[in-house]
């Protein structure tokens, strides 16, 4: 991940794997859920998972699809099968955190904006070399090729028609040109939802961790939308159990 050339090659491979996953079904719906959990003690333990969720009725042979995608992701690195821990039950929901049965406190945010000018090492700077426990997850829903072309077409048409701001229209046309180029080269469009959970042993600790995470987000130009109150199952999104419904919403 530190070496730019190798990192770029790996990202290319991951992109191809997502495209391949999107093309496995005629309808959109295959979900790839990638999580990263850092347990910081004397040494840091990283748990990284990739799980693929195929909604019921999407394809006649879901097992075949899963095995195909398993082979595809195995080319990205060494995969070991993992039985995830059961989802910790919520003991007490608070206003800005939830207390879990195992004594931990969690607070989860959805990532609503990514930096415009992101270098390839965004994730390694964000996730490595930290000093508290943290979970991070991204849910990818790749679109099939036909649908992604249609989506790109409507997006560019809409931005041409409805944007009156010349500068903004120009920027959007540049973006759609880039998307067009990527689609021509065989990429597909991917819907992504990203979540970040911070952990603590007490309400104070988790509030402090949340504050630190906000600062980190600002530094990396990531916008965080903290999920309070009612959405007390939000931390599940950052566990391997994350993807549940057809639209990826488990809240």
């Amino acid at each position, binding site marked *: 991940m*530190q070496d730019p050339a190798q990192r770029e090659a790996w990202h290319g491979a991951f992109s191809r794997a997502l495209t391949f996953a999107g093309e496995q079904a005629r309808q959109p719906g295959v979900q790839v859920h990638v999580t990263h959990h850092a347990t910081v003690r004397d*040494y840091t333990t990283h748990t990284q998972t990739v799980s693929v969720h195929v909604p019921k009725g999407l394809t006649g042979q879901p097992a075949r699809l899963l095995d195909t995608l398993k082979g595809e992701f195995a080319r*990205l690195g060494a995969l070991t099968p993992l039985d995830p821990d059961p989802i910790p039950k919520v003991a007490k929901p608070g206003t800005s955190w939830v207390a879990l049965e195992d004594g931990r406190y969690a607070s989860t945010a959805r990532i609503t904006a990514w930096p415009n000018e992101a270098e390839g090492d*965004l994730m390694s700077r964000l996730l490595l070399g930290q000093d508290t426990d943290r979970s991070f997850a*991204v849910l990818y829903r790749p679109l099939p090729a036909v649908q992604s072309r249609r989506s790109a077409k409507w997006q560019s048409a809409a931005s041409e028609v409805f944007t009156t701001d010349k500068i903004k229209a120009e920027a959007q046309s540049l973006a759609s040109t880039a998307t067009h180029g990527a689609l021509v080269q065989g990429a597909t469009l991917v819907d992504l939802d990203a979540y970040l959970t911070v952990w603590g042993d007490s309400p104070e600790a988790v509030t402090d961790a949340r504050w630190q995470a906000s600062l980190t987000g600002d530094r990396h130009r990531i916008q965080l939308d903290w999920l309070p109150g009612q959405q007390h199952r939000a931390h599940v999104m950052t566990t391997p159990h994350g993807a549940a419904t057809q639209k990826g919403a488990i809240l």
Partner: protein
Amino acid sequence: VIRLPSNHAAITAPLVASSVRFPGIPIGRSLLDGRLFSLSPVQTDSALLPSTNSLALGGLGSGKSTTAKTRIRREIADHGHQAVVIDSFGEDQTGEWAALTRSLHGRVIEAGSFTLNPCSNLLPPEVREQLVRSLIASVEPGALTPQSTHALQHALTHPKATSLNAVMDALVRPEDGRWPAAKLARWGEGVAIALSRYTEGSLSGLFDGRDARLPETDLPILSFDFSRLDRNSPAIPSLMAAVSCWAEQVWLPQSAAVHRHLILEEAWQILLSPATAELIQRLLKNSRKASLSLDVVMHTLSDLGTGKAQDLAKLCEIAHVGRLGPEEAAAVGTLLGLPAWAIERIPGLDPGQAVWKVGPHYVDIVQTLLTEAEARLTDTSTRRRRAQQLLAAAPDTIEDPAPQEKDQDDAEHDDPPAKHVPDTIEPALPDGAGLEAENRYRELPPGLTDTRHRDALQAAREGRCSEAADLAALGERQDITAYGINSDQAVSWLATRAKIAETSGSLGQAKQLRATVARLGKGIDWLEQPDNVRTEPERRSDPEPATHKAPADIEPVNKKRRTWPYTATIAALTIAVAGVWQNSADDEEKQEKSDRAAPSHKGISAALLNIDGVATKVQAKWSRDGTHVILSVKVAPEEKPRFVRIDAGGQNAQDEPSPLKERQIAMPIHLEVKVPIKGHHQAVQMTIVVGGPQRKKSTRAPGRTIEFRPDRTVVDAKTGKSLKDY
């Protein structure tokens, strides 16, 4: 929901930590992802790491040698590896590795306080020649022409060439060989001049001793401390040559550890000399076969010039680079093939941090983590620390995982040396570390405790006779492989087998085995000890009468060598005390005997001895005026001896009959020496060494020390038993 093309979405994949993990000892924490970094090169898959040599680079205070020391300490403690350190750096006149070596019960050998005999009989002839040649090459690289090499070879085969001075004599006044003596003398001039640096020049006192002792090969760690010598001393290449020769020819074949490390601390001065660089290069290339890792610690590769540095870097698959200046970092990075992002980090590393490169692809930045005990043992800049005491930042330590280890370490440091039980043996080399280690062998690293003898005997006592015999046979085979068939270890197995045979009821076999032990001339006195006191030979000294000084380069076989530094963990103190008591008893006995011997004076004594299958007649004749004794030995030609030598009172005589040609008649061997004495009643000791018809050149001939008394009795000086007259 954010909708992005998949190539843009890919950079959000949170799969950032590498899964590569090496087996072995923990080293520290990765600064990139905080993971534990552990590495034992020898346990790593050989496809990933074909060679296990490592290279440590870094500026002053970058923590490179602390990391090297910690690695070795953990390898020895966790996996029972062995290490030999060539330590040429330190402060306060002690080597950097001394504290660590002592804490691991190793031995520190200081340059200048020991002399080595490169022509000693302990070394096989080819090693002797190699060693003398490398000594010459390190002072006069041009002296070794084909002619001078032949002259040297000729001189080394001279029977009297048992020390460097004698080799010089044989070079200057050669005997006729294949070429006439005059020619040989002319050829040998160059090498003789080169060798004179060691006998009378600036390097005298290092190699010209007659003393022939070699360091033990079964210590967990052995440190050759060159720190007292000047950085640029010409002695360093020579000493290096001797040490690497010893390591290659003696240590590697004899040590029984699973893996060995040779550490070169501040290696640039060693690698700069062409003679030693060649030796190191050879060791590096053969390291895989010999299960040896070379761990080279140095400042930077640019000290070495270009060609050699590249060779070294290519042969070291593992490199860790501590803080260096930007230019040096760039040069080192290019040589080692480090990626640009790692090279950029090198100038900004803190002490203890290093860029690690393992194998061709894996690169990590690692902070070495030390326990408290390790931090104390590896601290080399105590002076500086004292000066900075108030300002010094707390060292990066983690809690010591093994509290009992810490306690022991504390105890070691608090114990005054005088508290140790006086040991009766004189140290093989003048350093007390080994003795201290002896008294503390309770906390041995695993794998070095030897309970095999006890286990076998225990099995026999419990009636599991065939299992006991199997155990003994297995142990014997291991020790023969490790130490050789004539070693004390191998013989001690014969004794154990005898005891097992006795316990199992086959008395005939026991008798036969005991006879074999007796015939080999090894010490059998410990055989007579009751089982519960000791079951293995302990090292123990025998007091020697003042008149006799055994020649050091021929080792009488029944002299106890220090071969079992780590014996079973049965009460060490009891044995040491018993040894002292026993020695004093021996002294008294001896005194009584000489008192008794005084009145009856016959003026002659003789005995018939059988050494190595050769019957020899020895005789001593006292002169009438009581000023001297003539000691003689006769061997009949039918006995076909290969080699006979006697030593007494500092004088010696020897004969090595050449193979008979046709129509030549074998002549009896008759050797005599005249030894001055102080009166009619003085007893005289003589050492006789005989090589039998089966003796090979490379093996040491067995010998015995006997004592002639003027009352017509001859006794064995070791056992005190009287010998048969003829």
